[in-house]
């Protein structure tokens, strides 16, 4: 079995590119096959890429504050298009202004994201969590 494929990108009209380039590098180094869509990616572009590459996870970044508008509905759209098991991660400065991170996490968990990351998250740790989430959802042996 080869490396797990993940789709990476910055959602909406956001052009913050630095973190995206670093994420590509770090997740590749941590053993993933990374399909990096770069900046300004629509929800459908994420889903198209995930379907085409049989990706296990979609990693959505948003740094410019309008993530609240851009991220809602992605889980429903994935289900509509037959991506029932795909893991959704989201991270960055997800809402306008300095907010309680716990409330932001709650808001995005309710939208259907499996994990929510702050902009200063440890990337190696995030990669370990992703390996574990993929193992549990896709590779765990059925209970006898």
């Amino acid at each position, binding site marked *: 079995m080869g490396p797990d494929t993940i789709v990476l990108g910055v959602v*909406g*009209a*956001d*052009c*913050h*590119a*630095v973190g*995206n*380039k*670093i994420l590509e*590098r770090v997740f590749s180094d941590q053993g993933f096959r990374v399909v990096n869509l*770069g*900046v*300004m990616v629509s929800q459908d572009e994420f889903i198209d890429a995930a379907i085409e590459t049989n990706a296990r996870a979609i990693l959505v970044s948003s*740094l*410019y*504050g*309008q993530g*609240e*508008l851009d991220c809602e509905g992605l889980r429903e759209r994935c289900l509509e298009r037959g991506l029932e098991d795909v893991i959704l991660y989201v991270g960055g*400065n997800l809402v*306008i*202004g*300095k*907010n309680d991170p716990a409330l932001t996490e709650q808001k995005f968990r309710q939208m259907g994201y499996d994990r929510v990351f702050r*902009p*200063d998250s440890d990337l190696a740790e995030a990669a370990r969590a992703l390996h574990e989430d993929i193992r549990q959802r896709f590779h765990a042996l059925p209970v006898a």
Partner: protein
Amino acid sequence: MPADTDTESQQPLQEFLAEREEVLRTWSTGAEVDLEEGIAYQLSIPPSRRFTRVLAEADREQRVLVQPRAGVALVDEHIALLRHLQGEADLLPTTIDAYTRQNQYAEAQKGIDRSLQAGRSVLNGFPAVNHGLRQCRRVVEAVNRPVQVRHGTPDARLLAEITLAAGFTSFEGGGISYNIPYAKKVPLERSIRDWQYVDRLVGLYEERGVRINREPFGPLTGSLVPPFISHTVGILEGLLALEQGVRCLTLGYGQLGNLVQDVAAVQSLRELAEEFFRLRGFEDFQLTTVFHQWMGGFPEDEPKAFAVISWGGAVSALSRATKVIVKTPHEASGIPTAEANLQGIKATRQIVSMLADQVFADESRLAAEVDLIKSEVRHLLKAVLDLGQGSVAEGAVRAFQAGVLDVPFAPSIHNAGKLMPIRDNQGAIRVLDPARVPLPADVADFHRERIQERARFEGRKPSYHMLIDDIYAVSKGRLVGRPR
């Protein structure tokens, strides 16, 4: 030799006016714009609210002007925000939201509606096109400082039409600096062409006695961009603007963190721009500079953020920039509250005032760094202008195609992204690998030697890991990304 009115690079007036009609039809609010009425309105604005006047006075008095960034979704809230800031700020902004920057006016409208429902702004700026001319005039009339449009828009034609007619007296951006760092797929020839339109419009105002300030966006990606790259882009955009009739330019530079390099960068930027503008036949222009406080990642902890802000304020004063764009203690989280924004302005004003009568003392090191940047920029600009065979615009397009101009960490697919910057042992940005960007051989050697000095000190090879450490260093409390 191009003269002060450069008809060769200008579209015939009739064609421009025909294009205007189309531009004004791209969103309903375009219909409110009438050029003659806009000129008459601009002529009625008192000098105290004109960017060019305030810049000229500060330049004469060697004073650093302080300007924040700010913009929210709704008009009344935006006015309240600017009024909250104007007591401490010399110049005011109106920062435009990201949907408007991509000409997604229907999305911006959703953002306005959602902001009304939520009772807070869910947009990261002010959607000026959707609000239209009359609402924009309420903004400029509600404050007692000049107001500038700050954004990141590859095609800003309609935004310029509406905001200039509405009485904004300065407009940030340019065909390169608002494409390469701000777009993914927009062809450079397209954005340069659309910005020639904006500059031509500013030129038409200028012809009628209305001087509008134009400010190419200096910091580009704000991520370890060597001064010679951003200077070259700024001077090219200055030339492109002059060709279209712009006469008041503010060239910008984003703080990198090493004191000598930063002071040398501002000084050399102004001198190089003068040199190249005159070399290309332009004599009549008003030139000033802007220093952007650190544009990279900020510490989350607010006292630490204040230190970064204050250091930027100090260097802006020592570098004799005409104005400084300030950050806020909320920078690590994105958009600040009005209060946090005001705090950043106050911290900056305090230190700028304290340093107003002091000069940077280390003359010999400064002179060496100024000479270095000048030799780099002259070498690179010559290569770009040669590629254009006389045309600045074509030179810029071909230079990016060839990787001769290359901006680190840019999102655009039209940027090579091969040049590799790294900090040297004292935190100055040097180039480990210039890729296809031409540098004189001795200069390229100097850069590599300075990076090797750091590599020996740290006992590791220069690599992408070192670069990633540099990207995160300031937010983690250092300038140079030392191994952990």
